[in-house]
């Protein structure tokens, strides 16, 4: 795998902030870049380890085939749900204009 030499750059912060929908002030970008670079440098120690033939652990458990029967259960009361909505209209959640299709 590629050796990781780059630390967390300013561009990286801008990229992940956009992906994660976090609006950052310009000053914040530099601050986070410095902090994240320092953290990444520390944890990047793992990237150099030899893990040939070591399988990844996705779950600590060895469960498989956990299923549920196709039987209808209770639903939530819509009023209780919409009471928590920042903005609701006609029984639906209202949001500002959506500019594009889903990616």
């Amino acid at each position, binding site marked *: 795998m590629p050796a990781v030499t780059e630390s967390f750059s300013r561009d990286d912060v801008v990229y992940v902030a956009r992906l994660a*929908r976090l609006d950052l002030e310009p000053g914040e970008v530099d601050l986070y870049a410095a902090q994240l670079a320092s953290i990444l440098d*520390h944890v990047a*120690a793992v990237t150099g380890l030899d893990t040939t033939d070591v399988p990844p652990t996705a779950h600590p458990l060895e469960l498989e085939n956990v299923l549920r029967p196709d039987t209808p259960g209770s639903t939530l009361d819509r009023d209780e749900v919409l009471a928590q909505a920042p903005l609701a209209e006609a029984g639906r959640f209202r949001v500002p204009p959506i500019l594009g299709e889903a990616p």
Partner: protein
Amino acid sequence: MSGAARDIPVGALATARAVRAGEVRARQVAEAALARIETFEGELHCFNTVTADAALAAADGVDAAVAAGRDPGPLAGVPIALKDNLCTRGVVTTAGSRILEGWLPPYDATVVRSVVAAGAVVVGKTNLDEFAMGSSTENSAFGPTRNPWDPGRVPGGSSGGSAAAVAAGLVPLALGSDTGGSVRQPASLCGVVGMKPTYGLVSRYGLIAFASSLDQIGPFAATVADAAALLDVIAGHDPADSTSLAVGFEPVSPRLDEGVAGLRVGVISDFLADASPSCVAAVRAAADVLGRAGAVVEEVAIPALMLGLSAYYLVAPAEASSNLARYDGVRYGLRVDGPDVTGMNGRTRSAGFGPEVKRRIMLGTYVLSAGYYDAYYGQAQRVRTLVARGFADAYERFDVLVGPTSPTVAFEIGAKATDPLAMYLSDLYTIPTNLAGHPAVSVPFSLSEGLPVGVQVLAPALGEGAMFRAAAVIERGADPQARGPIEPRATKVAR
């Protein structure tokens, strides 16, 4: 120490026994707890929400059951505090974040239903680091919680509010969550018992997720026996959680005092290298206690465990970055408007999340991103296997392991707040357990210049029985001054 009213028993088991026997009314117990909370909350800020009316109503319900001859449950009338990342229907649940300020869940977490069904009386929701990310409770959007042993110091985190509430005698029981040590570390810093169960033993349904493959809900109490009793109530299979273990769980309380004769105990030497002298001394002394009680004690090196911190700070933020995406201002919680949905999402999340949460979201997004996934996240998952193998090898030779819980005693509020990495190191000894999905418990053992030091007992998956027995023995040999509940200290401790 005494409660605000006479005749209120101390501790969960004693309280439940007395309530069940009709010797004391649950209402009295609840009133005493609420009064004590009122006395000390201003200083400590253990709670984000105190549910006084609901608590009294619940206590009345317990009393009615007792009067009618119905079984009121094993925790009848025992006041309990719940970490504010556990969903409680109709009760504000914030996860310590502005983004959920004022949010009312329309459902209860499974563990909440379990403790209520057991007769416990919920008195409120405790403070935490925002979305359970932190080791000091300083990352709460609603202000820090103060350590009852020294108000200038942190209680630990992320379950600082729960730990402090038990330490200050506000409640005998509390629930927290532990992803990298967030029950055990504050337990150690606050001089109470706190444990993390085997992954999958306690349902996560209703626990606001931080890192799904690491999170577990765990009990806080002043004594090992009380903590065991709470674990026995919340453990068990839940069909609403696909990662919930279906195997039969053997309750730990009945066999708690069977001792440790012949138990093979390994002292993790790697953990002693960088811990403070008082923490190291406590571990060695606790090991001696076990030895004198009949255990076979040896040192063991498990170097793979030291890889845990790095792997954790790749895996946990990665999962968190995904778990926290849902906080987008659309369906619940904070919304800061924008010209379009994307703008609204961005402004909402910027305003709603604190800096530590943002850091972890960004770090997590980065390690999952195209081109970096294999080197970081994929690699971290493989290191996780190495940690698990390290433990597995050790557990061929030992039944339980011991080590420090925290590298230090409680530090001053603000001391580590500007250095994220320094804060992360608080979890060095607790993280490996979460990576492996094993149980571990912190037992208050000694004092170092007036501040509590806890000792950690670790066990393999579903090894809670042996783990608790060892903890009970350590507790018997511990300094009784080193544990809560205490009267909260009004002034900072001069060191």
